[in-house]
């Protein structure tokens, strides 16, 4: 009951966030100088043509009416049609989304598999080989830009040692190198936080109690400390996952992957306003959903949060 109430509360907050974000997007786009109808119509268009395009785009009515329409469209998840291709924005996004999502999931899995164990190991055996290794890794991870790492990975593992394909997106194999490029820096952040959280938990008083009970080191570390450290780790991992969806734009460009990132990049080049609007709202919704999921997971892990 407590948990349910908490979830409902968080869900309402999620809806509110999306509402605010879409309102901001709506007005930001209106503030950008220039009439999109002029862009679409081109220089030679007649006034009638332009007016027709305005009607098609829905920019012929007052801003207030446009805003209400915009909100009702969002509620129905209808972002209109691309001004360039004429295809529905929904269809374009949903076509591309699975690839980006797969990439981000692979990236975050890589982060979790590498970063969390290494972070725990670094914290448990401080100033050991693993700790130094982790430190060097996290420094590098934060310093190396993902596009450069992507290029180097391609050069080494696709060109010099052809373990992975250079182009394409047909199989999981095609996504391994992009996922590494995407996850490398995120993993560094997760690693550092895991280490810090674990070190902090190991210095808490309840650890002394656990030791006084005669528990083994293994139980103390993994049953008692890790459980508490995970609260912080889950939060940061969720946020990193959100970043990855945005960060995919660059990596998709490097590996020529037809994902969401590339879609939006071209939409921006071509001033495809409906697609840009739809894309930003879509990303915002996904980001909010990830945060929502993190909140729920957080409250499951941390019994205290449900009450306060």
């Amino acid at each position: 009951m407590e948990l349910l109430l908490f979830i409902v509360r968080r869900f309402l907050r999620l809806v509110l966030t999306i509402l605010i974000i879409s309102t901001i997007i709506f007005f930001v786009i209106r503030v950008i100088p220039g009439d999109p109808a002029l862009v679409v119509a081109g220089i030679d268009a007649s006034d009638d043509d332009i007016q027709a395009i305005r009607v098609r785009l829905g920019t012929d009515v007052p801003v207030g009416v446009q805003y209400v329409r915009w909100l009702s469209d969002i509620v129905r998840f209808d972002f209109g049609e691309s001004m360039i291709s004429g295809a529905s924005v929904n269809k374009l996004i949903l076509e591309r989304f699975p690839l980006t999502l797969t990439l981000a999931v692979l990236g975050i899995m890589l982060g979790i598999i590498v970063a969390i164990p290494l972070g725990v190991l670094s914290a448990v055996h401080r100033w050991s080989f693993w700790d130094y290794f982790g430190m060097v890794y996290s420094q590098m991870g934060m310093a190396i830009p993902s596009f450069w790492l992507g290029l180097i990975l391609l050069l080494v593992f696709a060109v010099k040692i052809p373990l992975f394909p250079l182009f394409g997106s047909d199989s999981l194999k095609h996504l391994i190198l992009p996922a590494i490029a995407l996850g490398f820096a995120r993993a560094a952040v997760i690693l550092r936080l895991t280490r810090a959280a674990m070190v902090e938990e190991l210095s808490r008083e309840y650890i002394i109690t656990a030791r006084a009970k005669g528990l083994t080191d293994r139980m103390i570390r993994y049953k008692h400390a890790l459980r508490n450290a995970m609260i912080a780790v889950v939060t940061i991992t969720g946020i990193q996952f959100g970043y990855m969806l945005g960060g995919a734009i660059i990596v998709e460009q490097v590996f020529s992957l037809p994902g969401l990132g590339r879609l939006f990049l071209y939409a921006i080049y071509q001033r495809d306003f409906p697609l840009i609007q739809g894309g930003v709202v879509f990303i915002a919704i996904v980001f909010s959903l990830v945060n929502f999921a993190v909140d729920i997971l957080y409250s499951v892990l941390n019994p205290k949060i449900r009450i306060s």
Partner: protein
Amino acid sequence: MLEIKNLNISFVQGEKEANALRGISLSLKRNEVHSLVGESGSGKTVTSTCIMGLLPTPPGRINSGQIILNNQDLLLLEEKDQRQIRGKEIAMVFQEPARYLNPTLKVGDQITEMLILHLGMSNIEAVDRALEILELVGLEGGKRILDSYPHELSGGMKQRIMIAIAISCNPAFLIADEPTTALDVTLQLQILNLMLSLKNTLDMGILFISHDLRVVHDISDWVSVIYAGRIVESTSRKELFTNPKHPYTRLLLESIPDADKRGQRLQTIPGKVPDAENIPGGCAFHTRCPIAEDICKTDLPETKEVGSDNSGTSHTAACHFIGKQWKN
């Protein structure tokens, strides 16, 4: 019997050495409360962590001493064997239950994990035993309590849970480090009474560590007063409170405010407790002592029998001038 013999412990950090315990001897009998009273920094907590085998070395260093339980010296045991003692033979209760309980683990798990580990019980057996223990520590609500998280319980209940954890394996000895300091007076009395009744039913020896002489008065059979890493006086409760010998004990007792002293100035002890890095030579108390003479600055007073009554109760103190009076 649990005997601590001449324990000497330092903390070493680089060039600095802090002599935290300078030859502590204590003996704990079953079914008896032995209180260790002292101010902060006097070495109370170092003593308890050392008995539990939880002293981090380094920075801690055991210079000499023995802790003897069942004819074996705990200090010589390997970590693996020490773990068999911890929680099972000697258990511990801490000051702030809110911080010493794992916030994300159900209370039940925190009790049963010891039963499973030390007594080899199955999960179901352990839960049954945990329910019995809850009753023993005066917590009603059985399964509901086992299923709750620490933050869902009140301060007094949390301390009862701490005690439940400690007594779960029927330990011979319990070390209680300021177990009621964080509690309100009404709860404090309840917890003290609970500890006394558990002592009797489980035939358990308690080392009660406290700074509060009034609480010590209420709970102890035997009292040892610790100052700057040495026991300065040790005797039965009755002797200590009616016939204190060491000037430190006498001053401490006189400095406690109560209604009878209304209108008078309180007795004070000038200065402060020395820190372990700079313990004065000779008798460590000489810098604050009203009856100190030159010899106190140079010679460490021996611990000797000072009892005056004929009942045979031992009363030891470490002072060159036992019985000497002073003017305020």
